[in-house]
């Protein structure tokens, strides 16, 4: 069985806020849910599947109640928690549920306010006593990946900087982006070192906000007014040091989720016109591009250099909303906004300055957790019908 073509993304909404001290987290979930349902042209009572992750206050059942979803109708729930890529995994799981007839209109929400105040700590795993004292954070965990990638493949800070440069070129056209100024490679290299070898401009922003999706059946999607975008391939995977034997920080679980998605879709990376790639840090993008097969392992530095990721300039336009590096990073989780910008590109709704002409195939890919410690990855391949 395959999910290829069995589920459509009919509604998208990205919250315009980047700082929301005046709103509750549950309220933000409701606002993005409302936005996505209205974007689809459906109503709340049409929703019969609900998907959320660890950012939803209290989890699925308090959210279902708070949102006032029709519980006589709601027949499928999924609260898979895999950090920032949870929502890309939810998209695949929604497609599976729809293909199996378990629901017909799935709502996926993400929202939170890390810019307003600190997020609750992640629950610890069995490694607690053997790792917690060493202060792994996002910055240094991804710094460790970059350090080893540079050692093994000669990747440079200049090459990493090109990823931020490309994101900034796109962000200048996004009125909601937190950082709208176009930056240069020198700007990135001259920004303060945060955790070697990552500079401040190698890091994404911290923002409040959220986003939501409506995933539905082909029949319902075809009855709606929006351009049709369907999921044709999906993959998910996890990776960790496994007893210390498998430690290799130069690749991510994308080496497994990517090929699974491409195989299901029946296409190759060469067919992709637009790529949404989770950009928690510049190194995250570089490693994932390699892992997904856009270039060979170790050649990501060359691939991203000289504007190759800039829409209208390079071969692989990426994160045309400015991504996490410049636009937003709601709840410190990038998966949702990656899907939303990919759908905008496929619908032809991206900003005209960054819209990819005749964009019919796009990828949305992300990771969750810490790339340098333990993480999940998920890949979605989307097609305009």
């Amino acid at each position, binding site marked *: 069985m395959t999910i290829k073509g069995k589920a459509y993304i009919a509604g998208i909404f990205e919250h315009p806020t980047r700082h929301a001290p005046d709103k509750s987290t549950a309220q933000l979930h409701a606002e993005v849910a409302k936005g996505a349902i209205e974007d689809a042209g459906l109503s709340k009572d049409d929703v019969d599947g609900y998907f959320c992750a660890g950012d939803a206050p209290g989890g699925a059942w308090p959210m279902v109640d708070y949102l006032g979803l029709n519980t006589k109708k709601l027949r499928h729930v999924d609260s898979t928690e895999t950090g920032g890529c949870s929502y890309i995994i939810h998209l695949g799981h929604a497609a599976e549920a729809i293909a199996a007839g378990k629901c017909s209109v799935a709502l996926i929400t993400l929202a939170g306010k890390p810019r307003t105040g600190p997020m609750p700590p992640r629950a610890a795993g069995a490694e607690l*006593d053997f790792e917690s004292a*060493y*202060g792994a954070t996002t*910055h240094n965990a991804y710094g460790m990946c970059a*350090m*080893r990638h540079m050692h093994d493949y000669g990747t440079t800070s200049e090459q990493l900087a090109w990823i931020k440069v490309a994101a900034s070129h796109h962000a200048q056209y996004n009125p909601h982006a937190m950082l709208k100024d176009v930056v240069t490679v020198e700007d990135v290299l001259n920004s303060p070192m945060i955790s*070697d070898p990552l500079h401040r401009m190698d890091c994404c922003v911290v923002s409040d906000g959220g986003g939501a999706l409506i995933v539905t059946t082909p029949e319902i999607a075809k009855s709606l007014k929006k351009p049709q975008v369907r999921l044709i391939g999906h993959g998910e995977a996890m990776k960790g040091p*496994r007893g*210390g034997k498998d*430690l290799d920080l130069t690749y991510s679980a994308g080496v497994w989720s990517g090929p699974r998605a491409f195989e299901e879709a029946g296409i190759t990376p060469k067919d992709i016109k637009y790529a949404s790639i989770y950009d928690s840090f510049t190194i995250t993008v570089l490693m994932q591009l390699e892992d997904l097969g856009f270039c060979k392992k170790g050649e990501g530095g060359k691939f991203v250099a000289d504007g190759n990721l800039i829409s209208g300039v390079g071969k692989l336009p990426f994160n045309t909303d400015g991504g996490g590096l410049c636009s937003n990073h709601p709840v410190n989780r990038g998966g949702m906004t990656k899907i939303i910008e990919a759908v905008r590109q496929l619908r032809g709704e991206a900003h005209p300055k960054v819209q990819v002409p005749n964009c019919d195939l796009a990828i949305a890919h992300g990771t969750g957790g810490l790339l340098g410690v333990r993480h999940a990855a998920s890949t979605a391949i989307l097609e305009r019908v």
Partner: protein
Amino acid sequence: MSEAKKYPAPVTNAETAPFWEAARQGKFMIKRCTSCGEAHYFPRAICPFCFSDKTDWEESSGEGTIYTYSLMRKSPTGPYAIGYVTLKEGPSLQTNFVDCDLTTLKIGQKVKVVWKSTDGAPLPFFTPV
């Protein structure tokens, strides 16, 4: 800097208590599976490779090489260097590098275990040889 730093005491549990008891005597323990012969870290009762329950405690040399590191330039307790060490016995593990000039660390550098006291069992760290 690192001498002044206060480290949290490990909580420990029934599965890992022997590691921390040995740590109090300055012994750095890993586990080895007698079914498949593989060593692993952190210690588990069931081998993460072959799933056998025949895992034995083994004292590690405490010597290894730096697999990678990153120097966190600022934190509430000052700069620190996190990284991974690949032990002579095979397994790699997460740690901090201490008692050295943090700006001169290099991948491939030889390091050895050092212990830092807490209110409970001491914690293992690594320092260049």
